[in-house]
Every structure is written in structure tokens, then in C-alpha cells.
């Protein structure tokens, strides 16, 4: 009399292999932490202007610099922010912003420069940011056609500010 092979193995012992699951979860966490840091450096919390048409395009995959006009009360600007660096809204701060931009453009001429400003900010506070970008282009000596300058907006009927 010989026992069947199934019964000879004894009771079934089923276990879930959780190691790959934990590995993936940790990788995803690291990914989101890094993406969150990059995003926080680029995006200041702003209420961007909303367009009525579908004419604006999607941002390209090119490496970009983002100049944020940090809003203040009374439609003003508290500072201008490039990455994690902040520049004062005075002549010295804007000159420093232009110099920093020029160095970055000189190092990578195929950059894309995006200007982000709050929808309620007065034009007189956004114009210096665009002027600083223009000054940086002149200071860098790079061909203007190689550097793309874009204004960041929200599309019609979608997204949150």
C-alpha cells in the first residue's frame, strides 16, 4: 500500500512572495519624492491666466528654465524665482536674475525659458521678468533664435490654477 504523491507532501502551505511588491513600492516612493522636489522647484503656487482658445501648445521636452513671478498683495510681485533661487523685485535683484539666466543660457543654448505669472499680477511686475530674460539673451551672446521663450497659461476649460 503506497500513499498518493499529493498526500505524501503533507498539507499545502501557500505563501505570498511580498518582496517584489515591497521593492516596487519603495521605488515608486523614491520616484515620487524626487519628482515632488523637482516640481516644487519649478512651480510656484500660482493662479495662471486662462486662455479662451486652444492655440497654446504643450510644453516641449526640452530642458527649461522657469522664471516665476511670485505674487504679492495689491497685484504686485514679492520676488522673482528661478529654480530655488529668489531675486528681489528691485533693480539689483533683476540684474542678478538676468546674469544668472545668461550664465545658464550660455551653458546650454538650446534652453526653453518659461515665464509664469499670476493672472492678477499687474503687467508692470511681469514686464521686468520678460525684460530680464531679454537682457540675459543679449548678455549671453547666444543667437536669439536658439532660445525659446514661452508664457505659461492654462488651457480653456481645463486644469486648476
Amino acid at each position: 500500500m503506497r500513499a498518493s504523491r499529493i498526500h505524501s507532501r503533507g498539507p499545502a502551505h501557500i505563501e505570498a512572495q511580498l518582496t517584489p511588491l515591497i521593492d516596487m513600492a519603495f521605488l515608486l516612493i523614491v520616484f515620487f519624492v524626487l519628482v515632488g522636489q523637482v516640481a516644487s522647484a519649478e512651480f510656484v503656487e500660482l493662479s495662471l491666466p486662462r486662455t479662451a482658445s486652444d492655440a497654446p501648445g504643450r510644453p516641449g521636452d526640452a530642458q527649461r528654465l522657469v522664471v516665476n513671478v511670485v505674487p504679492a498683495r495689491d497685484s504686485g510681485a514679492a520676488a522673482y524665482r528661478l529654480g530655488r533661487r529668489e531675486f528681489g523685485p528691485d533693480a539689483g535683484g533683476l540684474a542678478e536674475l538676468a546674469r544668472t539666466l545668461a550664465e545658464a543660457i550660455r551653458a546650454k543654448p538650446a534652453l526653453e525659458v518659461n515665464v509664469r505669472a499670476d493672472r492678477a499680477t499687474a503687467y508692470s511686475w511681469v514686464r521686468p521678468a520678460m525684460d530680464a530674460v531679454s537682457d540675459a539673451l543679449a548678455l549671453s551672446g547666444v543667437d536669439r533664435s536658439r532660445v525659446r521663450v514661452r508664457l505659461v497659461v492654462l488651457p480653456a476649460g481645463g486644469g486648476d490654477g
Partner: protein
Amino acid sequence: MADATAAEDRARTLGALERLAATARAGGPAQARTLPGRPSRRRARGVGTTLRTNLTPMIDVVFLLLIFYMATTRWGTDERVIAMDLARRTAQAPAADGAAPAPAPARDPFALDDESLRIEVLADGSVRAGTPLGRTMRLTELRELLARECRGVGSPGGMFEPSFPIVVAPAEDAPWEAAVAVLDAATAAGYRNVGFERRTAPAGAAR
């Protein structure tokens, strides 16, 4: 003599048995307590024991962190961009070795500005279109007007070519949204040469 020897042996055997019993009561070696041919209880319990870490709390925390980061990460995928050419400015290059910066080239006083449509953006969001339109209107009206007057397939009798320069000149206190809306209206109508008005004020003169 023989009785004495037998009594001595009996006493020795009893002493040994008592010591064995005392050892068993005190929890001595398992071999002393087990009967031959039967496995000890301790060894039977120890066979196949594996150390396991309880991973459930860690997985709970990991998933909570994952959900937190997924929910709080801002992707910015909804953002769009309007391409533009910035006005060329004569920025002062840093003077080398203390030398005075080169003076800006003198402008020909008789040179005429390129013909363009200048659109002023006022603080209340309304717009004032310059020559040849020459009137103040709401943004929706300007949008329709620009689309209608852009010469192309849809409107062959339009007043302006798509390459006609359109200059947006927002007032100092005009909200950024209104300025961008005019730029967007011109771009959406099909004009390709749209930009903000060139200012002569140096960088930094915000107010």
C-alpha cells in the same frame, strides 16, 4: 559480611535514584528525563522553527506613503505655453577691466517704425485697437474682429496678412490675464507676428 555489602549496594542505588529524581524535578538535561526510544518534547518543538518578520505594518506604511506622494505631487501637465519673441533690448554688457561700456548706436531720427497694429490693454480688461481700427472694445469683440480681418482661407477679404505685426501694449496696471488674453486672441486668429511692445526703460525699473 555479604549482608553488609548488599546493604551498601542498595543504599548506593537508592542514592543514585534519588539524585536522578532530584535532577529531573529541577529541569535537568532532557536525556535524563526521556525514556529510551521516544523523542523529547523540547526537541520535537524545536524542529523546523523558522524566524519570520511580520511585514504587514511595513507594507501598510509603504502604501500610505505611496498614496500620499501620488496625491500631493503636482505634475503641471495641464499647463500650456504661448511661444513669443521677446523685444530686443540693448542690455549693458559688463565692462572689461573698468572700461566704459560701449555707447548704444544712434538711431536714425528719420527712420519710420514698421507699420503694425497696436492694441492697448486697459486696467479694466477692455482693449483699444490703434490705426486702422481705432476704437475701444471688449475682448470678445476684439477676438472676433481679429479672426475676421486675418486674410486667409476662411476670410479672403481680410484686412491683415497673417504676417502683419501686432503689438500688444498693456497698461502698467493691466492684469496679466488681460494681456495674455489679447496675445492669445491674436495667436488664435492666425497672426504669426505677435509680441509685447518694446519698452525703453532699463531692466529693474518696475515701478
